[in-house]
Every structure is written in structure tokens, then in C-alpha cells.
């Protein structure tokens, strides 16, 4: 979820009014936004935006636009958009695309702006928009990258080319000397960060003007001359390159609308492709490509749960910046140029909900009758818990992830580790070695609890009823999640006979007959560990924890422990 910083003064200018935080906060819900930090001494406000499909809200102008439109119920209009078969006049402003880019980074959109010298808040906002758009919406520049240039230095047509990365050199922004594009990937900070997007291609994308002066190496870095925009520049050239035409055009429209709202004149640019694209071979950008979509008033009413009517619905949509009209119960909407999040009629329904106001929907007590039920495994777990509490046990609850040291190395002699590791579900991308394995047994964490609790009054009787995961090659997922119980007694005389008595009480009240058989298990003292068997099925083990295990866990009190597979016991 993106967070943006904005100048309160600029924001209020876009909004057309000032307001207190107490008035702003409820208004922000219209944009699914929250006031993260109120204005600081410099007048900077932090806002969190929850909707990852609304990149148009991630800038000062864009957020203010949504709120202004809502308050004024007037759809914002822009006159610089081209449409299919209807290109704007772009004069000499052209970008010519090289055929070699078709498989590398095929699409580009661009426009120029002119107006007042750009000031610090606007420049910061433009940089922030670039970052948020390209990072969150543009998948860390993989699908959208954006560049801003000083258009006074550009001779049209701009050329978008695929070039030899070793033979092409220029001075990248912030480097101070010429280097090859290949070297930029390893030596320039932006190259290291984003280089993987293009590194596997033979040729790299390059933007130059007609004189061969470099604008940038998309999606990595601008040049240090044409690409070095500063406060006071009044004429800019803006381009975006990418792999997905709809999101690229949306991003381009967002930035153009933002700058138009800031008072700049938008000068469209024609893009000349040598190959087919979803918008033809010579679209002018910014380009309005969105399709109208329609739904019925009835559908909206059924999902929202009250009668609304076509007029009220259209009014609600208008507050969201959406123009709509209706005929015979069908409403047709035209999405705003800066939005591309209408996949299905439900998306219209949601904007209607917000536009009509949440307070206009009264909560309704549900009327369908259904029977509530806990799972049999939950009911069984509760029986076990009650019994163990009756036996004097303290219930514990642990994390399910743990380390190799705790789950494996501490529990088993070294020669058994490789095998035991294979019996665990291991995480391929652990955040930390402390959380690298899913537990296969509850006992290690019971021992952890004992090891940190030597100061607690003895005896310690602790248990956990919870889940474990066992590897199972037969299973579709290769593992099974099971419900189990682990019990641990730590005390001067916590031994086999004590835990055996507890097991016997537990099974008596569960109404299960069991037998015991000898088993080899290095976690326990040899000859003092038993396998619990119901019918012919082993359902658990108990015994005295081996002093080697206790020593490795730093425990200086004898421990007897038990672990039972409750799913098996319940089924038998």
C-alpha cells in the first residue's frame, strides 16, 4: 500500500479550499485513503492509500482531484486526449520506435508540457509520482518506467532504439563520466537496482533525440544533460516505456492530468511504431483507450441492497469522476482517462457505493437461517485440553515456525540430522534462520519453554494442542497438516511412570483402549520410551527425555514428555 507525502499548501490549492484534519479525514475515505501523519512544521502531510488499482490517487494533484470531484459532483475534463481514429495535433513532436524493441520493451508513451517555471513542491511531487507509479503500479519499473527531460534541449523526432550495450556510451545522471550501458548495470547504483530487467537482452533500450543526444537508458537511468531537470525549468518532455500497453497509457494519462491540473499546457506526441500495437501503429499520447462499460440499475440495487434509481446512481458515479448515462434501466459509464480499474460491473457498483455515501446504507439484520457448528477436531481438542488442565497442566501456544537448531539439532544426535531435516517442511526463502522450518513435532518448543522457565515454581506441567506438518510423498501437496497434543512434565521426579499415569488418565476419559510397545527414539532415554498403539496404529509416544537433549537445551531438570496425533486417535 503506497504512502505519499504532500505539501498541504499545494494540496489545498488543487482542492480549491482549505480544511481542518477533522474534515479531511472522513473525506479521505472516498479515496480509500488515511491520514498517516498530519502536517509537520514544513507543512508536509503523509497519506496512506489502500487501493493498489488506483495509481491516479498517488499524487497531490490526483488525490485532490478525486476529493474535489466528490465535493463538487463535477467530472474533471481534459481536452488533450487522443482516441482511436482521432489523434490530437502533435506538430513536429514525434517518437520513432526501432523494430528491435518489439521483444525487449515494446511500448512507449510521451508528451511535452509548458507553463510556469517548475517550483520545488511540484518537482518533488513529480519525482514522487514517478517513484510510486513505477514501483507499485509498474512492478518496480519492469512494466512501467518514466523519464522527465528538459524539452528545450531536444530536437524531434525522439528516437527509441535498441542498441549494443557495449558499444554505446553516455554520461548517466549522477556519474560525471561516460561509461558503456553495460558498465552502468554493474557500476551505477540505478543499474544495480534495476539492471535485471534488461540484462538478459542482447540489445538495450536507448532514447536519443534526432541529433543522437541521449535522453535516457530506459528503464534504468537518465542522461546527465537532457535528463537533468531542475527547479525553474518551464518546458519538459515526459516519456514512459513498458511492456503492457493499457497500464502504460494509464500511467501516462495520470501524469498528464496531474500536470494539467497544475496549470501546464499538455503537448501530445505521436508515437510511430514499426509493428502493430493494441492502439495501432501511430497513436498520439496521452491516449484515451478505455472502453465504456455498462450494467443495469437492478444489478446495482441488488448488490447494494436498496432501491437507488438511475438518476441517483448517475449522480453518485459523477461524484467519483465517472460520466454515465442511462436508457431503459441500463447505465453506461465512461471511465475517467486516468483510471483503468473497471474489469467488471461490480467495479461500477463499488464506485456507486462510495459516491452515494456509506451512510446511505443502513445495516440490515441477516435473515437466512443456518446451523452453526464447530469442527469435530476442535471439539475433540477441547476435550483433551479440559482433561490436561484437570491434571494440572498449563496450556501453552507456540509459533509454528522455528530454527534448525531448535527443531532438529537440539533434539537428535548429529548423524540423524540429514534424515530429520528431510522429514520437515523447510522454507526456501526464510526471512531469518530462526523461522526456517515448519514444526513436525510440538516437543522442541515445550523444551524451549522449559529452558527459559527454570525460575518458575516447580513442577512444570505444560501442554499445547496445535498443528504439526508431516512430509508425505503420497499427498498432492507432499505434506499433511495434523492436529496433535504435546505434553511435558519437568520436575525432580518427572519420569516415565508419571507421564504414563497422565497418558492413562487422558485415554480413559477419551474412551480409548491402548497398548504400549517398545520403540527406539533417540530423543528419549533408551528403554524408557513407549509407543502408544490403538488397534494396530501407533498414535503417539511418551517417555523420559534423554539427558543429551536436556543438556543441549540448557535444561537442568528431568523431563518426561508425550506427543499424540489427535487426528488418528479421534478416527480410531
Amino acid at each position, binding site marked *: 500500500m503506497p504512502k505519499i507525502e504532500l505539501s498541504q499548501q499545494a494540496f489545498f490549492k488543487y482542492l480549491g479550499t482549505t480544511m481542518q484534519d477533522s474534515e479531511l479525514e472522513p473525506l479521505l*475515505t472516498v479515496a*480509500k485513503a488515511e491520514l498517516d501523519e498530519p502536517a509537520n512544521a514544513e507543512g508536509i502531510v503523509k497519506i496512506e492509500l489502500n487501493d*493498489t488499482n488506483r495509481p491516479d490517487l498517488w499524487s497531490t494533484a490526483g488525490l485532490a482531484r478525486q476529493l474535489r470531484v466528490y465535493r463538487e459532483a463535477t467530472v474533471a475534463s481534459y481536452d488533450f486526449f487522443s482516441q482511436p481514429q482521432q489523434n490530437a495535433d502533435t506538430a513536429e513532436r514525434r517518437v520513432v520506435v526501432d523494430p528491435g524493441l518489439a521483444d525487449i520493451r515494446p511500448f512507449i508513451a510521451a508528451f511535452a508540457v509548458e507553463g510556469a517555471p517548475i517550483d520545488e513542491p511540484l518537482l518533488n511531487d513529480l519525482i514522487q509520482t514517478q517513484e510510486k507509479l513505477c514501483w507499485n503500479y509498474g*512492478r518496480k519499473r519492469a*512494466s512501467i518506467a518514466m523519464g522527465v527531460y528538459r524539452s528545450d534541449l531536444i530536437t524531434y523526432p525522439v528516437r527509441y532504439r535498441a542498441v549494443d550495450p557495449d558499444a554505446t556510451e553516455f554520461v548517466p545522471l549522477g556519474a560525471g563520466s561516460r561509461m558503456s550501458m553495460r558498465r552502468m548495470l554493474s557500476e551505477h547504483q540505478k543499474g544495480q537496482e534495476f539492471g535485471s530487467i534488461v540484462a538478459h537482452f542482447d540489445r538495450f533500450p536507448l532514447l536519443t533525440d534526432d541529433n543522437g543526444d541521449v535522453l535516457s537508458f530506459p528503464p534504468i537511468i537518465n542522461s546527465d544533460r537532457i535528463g537533468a531537470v531542475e527547479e525553474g525549468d518551464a518546458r519538459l518532455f515526459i516519456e514512459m516505456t513498458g511492456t*503492457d500497453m493499457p497500464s502504460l497509457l494509464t500511467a501516462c494519462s495520470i501524469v498528464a492530468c496531474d500536470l494539467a491540473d497544475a496549470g501546464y499546457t499538455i503537448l501530445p506526441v505521436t508515437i510511430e511504431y514499426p509493428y502493430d500495437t493494441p492502439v495501432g501503429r501511430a497513436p498520439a499520447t496521452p491516449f484515451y483507450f478505455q472502453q465504456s462499460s455498462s450494467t443495469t440499475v437492478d444489478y446495482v440495487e441488488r*448488490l*447494494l*441492497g*436498496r432501491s437507488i434509481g438511475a438518476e441517483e446512481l448517475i449522480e453518485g458515479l459523477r461524484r467519483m469522476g465517472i460520466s454515465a448515462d442511462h436508457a431503459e434501466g441500463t447505465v453506461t459509464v465512461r471511465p475517467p482517462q486516468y483510471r483503468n480499474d*473497471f474489469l*467488471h*460491473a461490480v467495479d461500477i*457498483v*463499488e464506485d456507486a*457505493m462510495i459516491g452515494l455515501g*456509506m451512510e446511505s*446504507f*443502513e445495516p*440490515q439484520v*441477516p435473515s*437466512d*437461517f*443456518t446451523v*452453526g*457448528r*464447530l469442527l469435530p*477436531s*476442535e471439539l475433540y481438542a477441547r476435550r483433551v*485440553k479440559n482433561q490436561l*488442565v*484437570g491434571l*494440572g497442566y*498449563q496450556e*501453552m*501456544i*507456540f*509459533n*509454528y*515456525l522455528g530454527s534448525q537448531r531448535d527443531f532438529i539439532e537440539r533434539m537428535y544426535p548429529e548423524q540423524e540430522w540429514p534424515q530429520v531435516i528431510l522429514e520437515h517442511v*523447510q*522454507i*526456501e*526463502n526464510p*526471512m531469518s534462520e*530462526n*523461522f526456517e522450518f*515448519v514444526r513436525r513435532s510440538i516437543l522442541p518448543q515445550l523444551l524451549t519453554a522449559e529452558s527459559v*522457565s527454570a*525460575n*518458575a*515454581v516447580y*513442577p512444570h506441567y505444560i501442554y499445547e494442542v496445535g498443528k504439526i*506438518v508431516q512430509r508425505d510423498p503420497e499427498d*498432492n*501437496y*507432499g*505434506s*499433511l*497438516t495434523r492436529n496433535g497434543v504435546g505434553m511435558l512434565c519437568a520436575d525432580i521426579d518427572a519420569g516415565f511412570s508419571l507421564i504414563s499415569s497422565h497418558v492413562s488418565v487422558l485415554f480413559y476419559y477419551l474412551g480409548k483402549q491402548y497398548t504400549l510397545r517398545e520403540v527406539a527414539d533417540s530423543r528419549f532415554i533408551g528403554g524408557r520410551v513407549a509407543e502408544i498403539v490403538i488397534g494396530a496404529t501407533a498414535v503417539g509416544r511418551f517417555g523420559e527425555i534423554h539427558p543429551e537433549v536436556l543438556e543441549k537445551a540448557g535444561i537442568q531438570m528431568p523431563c518426561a514428555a508425550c506427543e499424540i496425533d489427535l487426528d488418528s486417535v479421534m478416527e480410531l
Partner: protein
Amino acid sequence: MSADDILKSLHPLEVRVLLRYGSNDIFDTHRIQEDVGLNLGQCNQAVSWLAAKELISEHERVHRTVYEITELGERLAADGTPEEQILAHVSDHGPAPLPQIASALGLENRDVGSAFGALSREGVLQMNGEKQVSVAAGTPSERMQQVRALLERARGGKEIAADRLSATEQEAMAGISKKRGSAGAPFRVIERDEVTYRITASGLEVQERLQAAGITGQEIGALTPQMLKDGSWRGASFRAYNIQVPPTRMVPGHRNPYCEYLDRVKDKLVSLGFQEFDGPIVETEFWNSDALFMPQFHSARDIHDVYYVKDPTHAKAIQEPYLSQVAAAHENGWKTGSAGWGYRFDRDFTRRLILRSQGTVMSAKTLPQAAIPGKYFGTLRCFRYDQVDATHLSDFYQTEGIVLGESVNLRTLLGFLQMFAEELAGATEVKYVPGYFPFTEPSVEVHIKHPVLGWFELGGSGIFRPEVTEPLGIKVPVLAWGLGIDRMALMNLGLDDLRELFSTNIENVRLRRGK
């Protein structure tokens, strides 16, 4: 403490001591033992309690050194000291070499050697030309006689006070006594203060009250089975106990309050007509995200957001027709009326095994078997690639649920949220704001006002997108909701760190209680 309170707080031992003496009596623990018939331990307890209550006070304190006979001393008194034994042996059997004497008497060579050394210096024994011990004077030395006299005086566990010994006796005693802690001497030296006491003015006042109340210190403490059997409790007087004495700590069997809280939430949801669901911790990308119509390129599906399983990496298969229908919904909307995401669905990636990152997985998995109308919920452990801190855990619980019905809609969703807010969280005020979740449209967040903590987000909800429900075979609207159950539990337990919920500290958990 008032005299009345003191009266109630007196132990029978104190009562008996207090009643025994008058204003002019001076007493010490020895005297109390004899006068009241207590043992030394009881005496010491009674005296220290009475002194603490200032009912008796010290009269005089005298430092004394006493000699206490040891086990060895008792044995020597009975069997003779090594010196006495050697002298007797040589007198009776004639001269003999030292080792022979030692073995005849069953003594250590070393002890016989040192005894002979002392006796030869005192002229009692001598060594002849053949290295044999023979009698010189033939009678015990004065020192030997004094040692014998001291042993006889102390025999039978008696003490000898240092100030009762003559100068020569003291010299003899110094040779046969050692300080406490050292071993191997017939006497142990004990330094101690001997204290005498007398009753204070308030002690006398309490004494009067005891007499007036007829309390003797012989009242019955514990009622025994024997008393009930023989009826001796009849007519007996029961000692009043001090009911303010702090109770002894017990360590009972105890549920974990966090688990109890989760149980209560489950019970509440069952009472509202919800059926519980559960499922595996290891899941596929398909159910974790694809079935929820989150595009495979979605930013929340990064390698840095989900834990991947190392082996096996992929599920063998995803159930059809759901796989194909979900894939089509992503690619072109399938038959849902959606445009879809317009990309090529990756059928290998969808089988990738991960650890479940959101409880909504089980809501989706429940859909193909769900009844209509139907309500389902689960409290599910979820796993996130997060740095563990006070507000993030590597694994945690989410409570998620769904409601299916021909006529459910936004207003019934709000109705459920209101019910949860009031029934589960005890909210006094509820606010609904538009929310965003990739799988619901419209989406609503519910915020509640907690009586103490103010406004906070209780959970998220919405109506499942048709791209979620229709590929899984459901044609009716489905309300979906999730509650931040761990945060609610923290509030219930009065904690502020999520890690505390899964505490391994037994003492912490023993002392913890919910509201």
C-alpha cells in the same frame, strides 16, 4: 496493631509463654522449655514472635563460650582416649613397638604416634633401646586426668561453660576442642549470646485480655478425623485463626488465556450460525491467490511476501474444472462478465507450494462445497515474510468467514459487521468506510470505538468478486470478512506486543488472565 488485633494474631505457643510469667519474672529459652513444656524450636519461635510484637523485651544479653561434647567425645569418654588405651596396653602387656600397639588397639599409627609423643614429653612413657614403648612413670599425667574429668563432666550431651573452668582445665580443654565446623575433636567450641527476657507493659495488657477471654493456648487448631471419631471436639474450644494471613501460592492447571479468547470467538461465531472450516498450512499459489483473482504479477505476490516451500516445490495437480475456470477468469474473465487481467496465466506457478499467507484461502476452498444459504468461518494460522517485531509475527491467526445467499448484499454485510462489532468486540460505536481488497468489490472496512482505546480497525470485508465465486461454481453473492483477531486478543489480555501471545515463558503464561 491494636491490642485486639494482637490478640487475634497470637499463636497458641505465644499465648502459653505469655500467660506463664508475671511482671517480675525474668526468663530465657531454657527456662521456658522447662516451665511451659516446649521444645527448643517452639521456644525460639514463640520468643521471636513475641519480641517482634513487643510483648516481651530483652532484659539482659550475655556473651558465652560453651563446649559441647561431640560424638567422638562421647566415644572416648566410654572407651578411653588413645593415650589412656596405650598406657593401659603397655602396663598390661609389657613393652611393644608402636605399630604393634596400634594394630593391637585398632588405632591409626598416626594417632598412636602423636599420643606417645605427648606421653613421653610428660614422662609417662618412654622408648627403650629396642624401639619399644615402655612405662616410665606409670601413672597418668595431670593433663590426662583433667581430660578424663572433662569428658566425664560432659558425658551424655552436656555442655560445659567456659567461665566454669579453672585455668588448667581451660588449658586442657584447648587441646581437645575445635570451633564449630571443624571435625575430629572431642569438644566443639560454641560462641553464643544468652538472652533473658521480661514481659513488657503491653505484654501484660494482652495477658490480662487473654485471661479475661479465657484463652489458654490449648485451643484446638486443626480438626482431626480422630476428634470426629471420638467426639473429643465436643466442648473443646477452637482457636480463632487470623483470616488475614496471605494464602499460600498454588500452581493450578490453567488454560492459556489467548487460546481461551480464540475459543470464545469461535463459540460466538457458532452462535451466530457459522460452521467452522480448517485446512492445510502448506498451500498452493492457486488457492492462496489465484483463486482469489489476485493477478500473478500482483505486487503482494512478490517473493518477499510469501514463504515458499523448499521441497516439493509444486503440488502434483490442481483440481479441475477449477484450475481452468480460474485461469480463464484471469486471462479473459471467463463467463463472469469481467474483462479479466489480460495476461497469460502461468499454470506451473499456480502449483507452487507456499505457506498459507491469508485465511481467505480457506474461504475460497470452501466455496465449491458450500451450501446456499450458508455461513462458514475459520480461525487459521497464516504465515508472512515479515521481520518479527511487536506488530508483526512470522505466523499468526486470522479469523475469516463467508456468507452465501440469494439475497445477501452490502446492507446484510453491514448487518454482520455490526453484529461482530457488538457481539465480539463490545463496541459502542461502529463506522464503515470503503476499503480495498483484491478479491472483494465492493469492499468495506469496519472501524469500532473501543471504550478505552478509541477508534481502531476491527476487520475488512466485502462481496467476493464474481471472478472469485463463479469459477468455483457459486452463482450467488458471497459476503467475505476477516477480523484482526490477534490485535483483539492483545486488547483482551491487556498486552501490547504480539510476540507475547506466543510466549514461551511458563511463569508469564501462568499469571496471565483475560478480561
